[in-house]
């Protein structure tokens, strides 16, 4: 492989990894508060449809992007209602949300399959884009990609250095103790669910606005589930999530490239790569026995106080 082939491949890696990164960071926020949300796939696809429809009808990708965030919050709030208000099992609620979200998006999206929407256009960053190799790989993308460069460090700061971030983590570790210390445990869990849902929605928006520019049924194709796996792989740390998301971006970019160059390998086998990699990555993270960073109260509901 020559440099002329590797640089576009790496640039494509960043693009393919971006929606997964948004969703992974979203799930991480939710899980830090002690809530397991397996509805990422459903929330992402609703975000993707919303972004597509808003862009299609208003012509404004920026408006569409924020609409997708709002749609993500709305969809995620169902998980909050079921788990926080009605004490439902978090695993089942997440599964239900995935089934519901996928059904919802395919139901309302059917009439728009194959139509296109105005998306974000690449915008080179002055000066940085001219650096050889680094420039074309990192700094000749659309603005949504640049947003993911600053998001992980911001989240890291949020989790470790702000009052709300620390409160969120405390509630995820030991909600009863946090409540005894005067924190509003359920309020923080709402923050985790809604904040996470916002970024999951953005992940979906990136798919329809920048990645495909059109609407297809089952747009997300398992990326939401990959995000759930990546949170475990990242040991609930934003920095490692970046690494994981680009790993998957790389394998997806490579798979597309191989298909385009007309390799002998059948496409169904190539398409297995990301899913197989997910299993592999999970096995790898379990081997390390470094699960100590997992929020201790993950998946456990807070009993209503009387």
């Amino acid at each position: 492989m020559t440099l002329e082939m590797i640089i576009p491949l790496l640039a494509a890696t960043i693009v393919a990894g971006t929606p997964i990164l948004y969703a992974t960071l979203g799930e991480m926020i939710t899980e830090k508060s002690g809530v397991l949300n397996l509805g990422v796939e459903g929330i992402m696809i609703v975000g993707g449809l919303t972004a597509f429809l808003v862009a299609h009808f208003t012509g404004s990708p920026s408006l569409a992007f924020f609409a997708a965030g709002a749609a993500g919050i709305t969809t995620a709030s169902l998980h909050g209602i079921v788990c926080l208000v009605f004490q439902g099992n978090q695993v089942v609620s997440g599964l239900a949300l995935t089934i519901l979200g996928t059904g919802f998006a395919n139901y309302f999206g059917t009439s728009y399959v194959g139509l296109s929407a105005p998306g974000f256009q690449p915008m080179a960053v002055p000066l940085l884009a001219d650096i050889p190799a680094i420039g074309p790989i990192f700094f000749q993308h659309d603005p949504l990609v640049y947003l993911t460069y600053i998001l992980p460090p911001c989240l890291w700061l949020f989790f470790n250095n702000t009052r709300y971030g620390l409160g969120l983590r405390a509630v995820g570790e030991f909600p009863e103790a946090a409540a005894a210390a005067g924190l509003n445990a359920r309020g923080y869990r709402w923050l985790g669910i809604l904040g996470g849902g916002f970024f999951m929605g953005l992940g979906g928006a990136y798919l329809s606005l920048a990645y495909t520019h059109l609407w297809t049924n089952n747009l997300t194709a398992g990326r939401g589930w990959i995000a759930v796996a990546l949170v475990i792989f990242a040991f609930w740390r934003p920095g490692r999530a970046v690494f994981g998301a680009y790993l998957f971006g790389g394998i997806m970019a490579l798979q597309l490239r191989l298909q385009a160059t007309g390799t002998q390998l059948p496409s169904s086998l190539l398409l297995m790569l990301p899913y197989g990699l997910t299993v592999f990555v999970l096995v790898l993270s379990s081997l390390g026995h470094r699960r100590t960073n997992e929020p201790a109260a993950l998946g456990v509901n807070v009993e209503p106080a009387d």
Partner: protein
Amino acid sequence: MQRFRIIKRQERLGWRSCFILLTAIALALLLSAVMLVMRGTPPVEGILTLFKGAFGSRWAIEDSLIKAIPIFLCSLGVATAFRLQIWNIGAEGQFALGAIGATWAALTFPELPKPVLLSMMIGAACIAGGVWGMIPAILRQRLGTNEIIVTLMMNYIAILLLEYLVYGIWKDPASYGFPMTPMFSEQAIVGKIGTSGVNSGIFHCLVLGVLFWIFFTFTRTGFELKASGDSVRAARYAGIPYNYLVVLVMVLSGALAGWAGFLEASATINRLQPSIMVGYGYTAIVVAWLARLNPLNIAITSFLLAGLRVGVESLQLDMQVPAAFGGMIEGLILMTVLASGFFVHYKMVPVRKQ
């Protein structure tokens, strides 16, 4: 404003929990009707068409029964795993592997006598499905790997494997390029009952359902499974081999879903093609959660959700409602029923003003 205190119920609710369940389902149907309105379909007519399409004629009931067969078998396995607090989301993939295993036997030994060949197909389907279920179980038991994601990823892999086979080495040369295997030989096909459209797979369900009930009611392992579902720690203290049970349940679960795959390939479409994957494995999750571990409840719920699928098909034909409507209703029912569990476990007591 009247304020309420939330108190955990000490007593069982009994028949009133049935009322809560029905209210939840009614709410889900109401929300589905709202979804119909949002796409410009008349809601009352739509819901009526749904029910008429599902249970309104002999043909509809037969079709619902045909679809209930694979859902029932997948649910038996998923429900068992749920009971043990193992989240087997992989029935879809185990179903695919079962269909692949059965097809392998059918294509390799087409000339064997019918009872022998069908037994071989069942065996191959159960082994393939069982192995597909065993992998996540062993990963979980040995390494603590999250079985939800592994089973789910293995669904995607299984479906792609199935596509690889029917687009590649198993493709029928006479299919004009359509991805499908040749039609199975007469000996490889599970026949229909009398003049009806329903295949005798329904007898398989009956036998397996009774065996399932006997297993849980009369055997030691069945009792251990039920007991360790309530508390894993208590089970370990009592000397119940929890880790072994996890693997056993996932193998059984996979084998049952594999059996469903066999029946679908052999009895319903008589060959293997990608359209065999219609999401029965995911519907089975909904059924298993709604019906829990009682085979009779599983059978009834499977029939109802199969009916929903048939009803949505006629909605699609008569009123141009997208097929995804069915999945949306399933998701809504699961969410509302899950939330309604709150009223079974807790009660709200009005707080008197001081």
